[in-house]
């Protein structure tokens, strides 16, 4: 199921079908560049083929006379590897010498999330690269007066095969400028069998600078004369300052200014508060500590984890706010040989990116410049422009590296705070969120309950499956009132197993706690729920969990995507294949030994994936020893990066499944820092084995895929080891049943 993270406010990039050439004088990257690309911003504009543009970031490839190439990256690099994988798409088709390639981050970068970068860019970037390649062949053929078919491009040069003559791309630039470009829509793409980069393990281009401490993250931006700001926000959601005494704060060495900013509402959601500006981050923090603030805690002081759980429990039995209409009958009353009912519980989660939120901003008259570690440079720009009442053309957002995204940086709240601050501060100012700010004013993964009811016939086939989710809805916070679409975030999509009567329903649980997109969104809890429940059905049917899944999947039909474009089609055999391979690699048939168990899980969420977890249970302690992952994601771009995304997503998710929970008391988050928000450490990380099924099918995104299965795989393994079924997250052996 596609994660729909768009709202009307976030522009969806449109890819123009016209390629164009930009004259060299316009390129900010230096004199003497051929700039080729596909226009990637809305609105679609008709252009003549020789149109010029003054914006170098509108094009993907800048070829230089010295035969080097700059490739433009218009997505945010947050560790998922697009800094290398997207340029690889360009370089592969353009037949560029990878050793002569460097990357330029676009100032027109746009929304990065939903595992969509490779999926969305795969065709357009390949087309752009192919346009360059074909143009070079044409130019070389013209230069030598030979047939095109005799000219072969390779590593930034064209070779005339019969004679052995070579010409570097750089020497062909002038010629290319004089010729019409091929149509990007019609240009031929390389056969996967001839790939020299795609599918291989390519070292990440940004790794050296990150290892030497030179890579610049948002918090590392340093400008002459810059100052630093922190905000005192009411710990209670919805609370505001009532009385502020800034005397001691202003007397703190290094503190320059203290002022208030108001909260912002729908789709921005800032708390407002008291800003302290100082010469150093430290002085700003000290100044904030010296503020005397009386808070008006607002109307939500009585909200707590207990009240939310209460509402969720009651919501399970209330009329549904949304319900799927997949069948005529009420699945819960269909005659069956066996029935299973389970309620699963999941808590709020923090993103806890290692780099807390921050942004550097400089307002000079009617022009504003910002340096932002953001997944949405486009929304950052429009939010800043809106707050400052400036046209977007007056706002420039430079996208920096960022210390983790995970969906937290897909929002425009701290950018809006910075714009509010910039109105009071003439120097460049860096807004810093401390770890405590970040932990207590996040946009959390929702909390809730998910009740599943299954009915089996005498052969263990699934006659009925109904799932009712009651959660602190994400969509209710972000969709227009009256137009809430829970099916795109809270609900799990259609299970892969054949189910005679399926019904899904949803009841929102009201909460003041802000919610957002947390790596894989609904996948982060629904994967756990679905793949735990199918295991429970296997147990009811008296079958091995691997064989049960396999039997059911082989009885399933292939499915076409719901709307033809928004999700990959479910090809049953690809899922069975990864399931089989995971079982094989994990040694499913072999006994794991005393106090040990294996659990299996599979999904088509983004990619076809299966995981087997092996655990050792001693007393109340769970140790995850090994996780085997098998994936079929279609064409792998960078095997190195693909593997690290699966490893990374698995460990990120495991942290949440085993350790993490945000709790609420008196309308405020309880956890403050890593002392009370426990995350996975290296000593708790399992061995990881990751296998790819080789494929040249359209690629699936992998940024979130690793999050879906580990919770269920581990819970299933715990059941195998102990006979105890855990349904509450994070997983604790002393769980009290719901």
């Amino acid at each position, binding site marked *: 199921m596609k994660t729909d993270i768009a709202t009307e406010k976030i522009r969806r990039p449109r890819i123009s079908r016209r390629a164009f050439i930009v004259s060299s004088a316009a390129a900010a990257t230096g004199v003497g560049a051929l700039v080729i690309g596909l226009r990637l911003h809305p609105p679609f504009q008709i252009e003549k083929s020789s149109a010029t543009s003054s914006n170098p970031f509108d094009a993907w490839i800048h070829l230089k006379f010295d035969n080097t190439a700059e490739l433009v990256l218009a997505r945010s690099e947050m560790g998922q590897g697009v800094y290398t994988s997207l340029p690889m798409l360009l370089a592969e088709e353009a037949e560029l010498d990878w050793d002569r390639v460097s990357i330029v981050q676009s100032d027109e970068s746009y929304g990065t999330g939903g595992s969509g970068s490779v999926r969305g860019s795969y065709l357009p970037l390949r087309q752009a690269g192919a346009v360059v390649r074909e143009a070079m062949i044409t130019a070389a053929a013209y230069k030598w007066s030979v047939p095109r078919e005799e000219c072969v491009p390779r590593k930034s040069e064209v070779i005339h095969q019969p004679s052995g003559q070579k010409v570097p791309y750089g020497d062909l630039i002038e010629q290319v400028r004089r010729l019409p470009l091929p149509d990007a829509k019609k240009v031929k793409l390389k056969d996967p069998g001839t790939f020299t980069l795609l599918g291989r393990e390519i070292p990440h281009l940004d790794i050296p600078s990150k*290892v030497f401490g030179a890579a610049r993250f948002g918090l590392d931006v340093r400008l002459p004369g810059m100052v630093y700001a922190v905000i005192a926000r009411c710990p209670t959601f919805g609370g505001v300052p009532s009385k502020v005494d800034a005397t001691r704060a202003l007397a703190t060495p290094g503190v320059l200014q203290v002022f208030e900013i108001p909260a912002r509402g729908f789709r921005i959601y800032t708390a407002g508060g008291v800003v302290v500006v100082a010469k150093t981050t430290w002085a700003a923090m000290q100044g904030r500590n010296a503020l005397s603030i009386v808070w008006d805690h607002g109307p939500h002081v009585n909200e707590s984890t207990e009240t939310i759980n209460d509402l969720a429990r009651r919501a399970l039995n209330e009329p549904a706010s949304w319900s799927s209409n997949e069948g005529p009958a009420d699945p819960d009353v269909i005659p069956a040989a066996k029935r299973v009912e389970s309620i699963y519980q999941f808590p709020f989660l923090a993103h806890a990116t290692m780099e807390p939120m921050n942004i550097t901003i400089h307002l000079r008259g009617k022009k504003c410049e910002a340096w932002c570690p953001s997944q949405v440079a486009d929304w950052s720009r429009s939010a800043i422009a809106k707050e400052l009442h400036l046209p977007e053309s007056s706002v420039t957002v430079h996208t920096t590296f960022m210390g983790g995204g995970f969906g937290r940086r897909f929002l425009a709240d701290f950018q809006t705070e910075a714009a509010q601050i910039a109105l009071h501060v003439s120097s460049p100012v860096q807004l810093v969120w401390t770890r405590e700010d970040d932990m207590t004013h996040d946009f959390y993964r929702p909390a809730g309950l998910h009740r599943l009811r299954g009915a089996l016939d005498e052969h263990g086939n699934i006659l009925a499956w109904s799932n009712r989710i009651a959660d602190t809805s994400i969509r209710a916070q972000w969709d227009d009132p009256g137009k809430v679409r829970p099916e795109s975030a809270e609900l799990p999509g259609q299970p892969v197993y054949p189910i005679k009567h399926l019904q899904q329903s949803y009841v929102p649980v009201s909460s003041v706690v802000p919610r957002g997109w947390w790596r894989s969104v609904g996948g982060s809890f629904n994967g756990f729920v679905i793949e735990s429940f199918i295991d429970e059905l296997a147990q009811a049917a008296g079958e091995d969990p691997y064989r049960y899944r396999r039997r059911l999947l082989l009885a399933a039909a292939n499915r076409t995507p719901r709307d033809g474009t928004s999700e990959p089609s479910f090809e049953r055999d690809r899922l069975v294949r990864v399931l089989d391979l995971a079982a094989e690699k994990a040694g499913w048939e072999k006994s794991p030994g005393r106090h040990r168990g294996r659990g299996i899980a599979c999904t088509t969420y983004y990619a076809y994936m299966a995981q087997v977890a092996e655990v050792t249970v001693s007393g109340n302690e769970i140790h995850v020893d090994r996780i085997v992952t098998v994936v079929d994601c279609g064409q792998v771009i960078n095997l190195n990066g693909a593997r690290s995304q699966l490893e990374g997503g698995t460990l990120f998710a495991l942290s949440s499944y085993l350790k993490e929970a945000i709790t609420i008391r008196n309308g405020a988050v309880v956890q403050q820092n890593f002392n009370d928000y426990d995350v996975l450490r290296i000593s708790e990380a399992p061995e990881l084995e990751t296998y790819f099924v080789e494929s040249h099918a359209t690629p699936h995104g992998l940024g979130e895929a690793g999050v879906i299965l580990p919770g269920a795989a581990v819970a299933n393994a715990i059941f195998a080891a102990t006979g105890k079924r855990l349904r509450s997250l994070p997983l604790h052996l002393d769980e009290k049943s719901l």
Partner: protein
Amino acid sequence: MPQYNLQINSAQYPVEADAEMPLLWVLRDLLGMTGTKYGCGMGLCGACMIHLDGAAAPACQVSVSDAVGKKIVTIEGLGQHGFSGVQQAWIQEQVPQCGYCQPGQIMSAAALLVANPHPTEADIDNAMSGNICRCGTYFRIRKAIHRAAGEMNS
């Protein structure tokens, strides 16, 4: 404000700072050395690890006044001080994803390998458990430490 002379990466840096200002912020805000990262401010996450007289220490827990007279090495100077092998291992194993925690990870790993050139898995657990990685690079961190140890000992 008092003046302090700090020895960082074998060079002298005079700074003017409040006695209690953590070395982390002296490095980042007064000296512009942003390789040492802020993650928690409480010595819990390891992002700000530096070497103080050869031992790994979180810079957010060392005041500038306590840092005087001590030999400070940061990620920027690690290569010059004999640890480029650790950084090379990190590159060869392709460890970093977002990369924000990695300077701290590398500083902790380098200190481990000085004290213990043949670390066991348990030694790695103990030495590295103070360093959080949210991107999930622990599996490759382990491999890189073994690789660096192997190179050192060959």
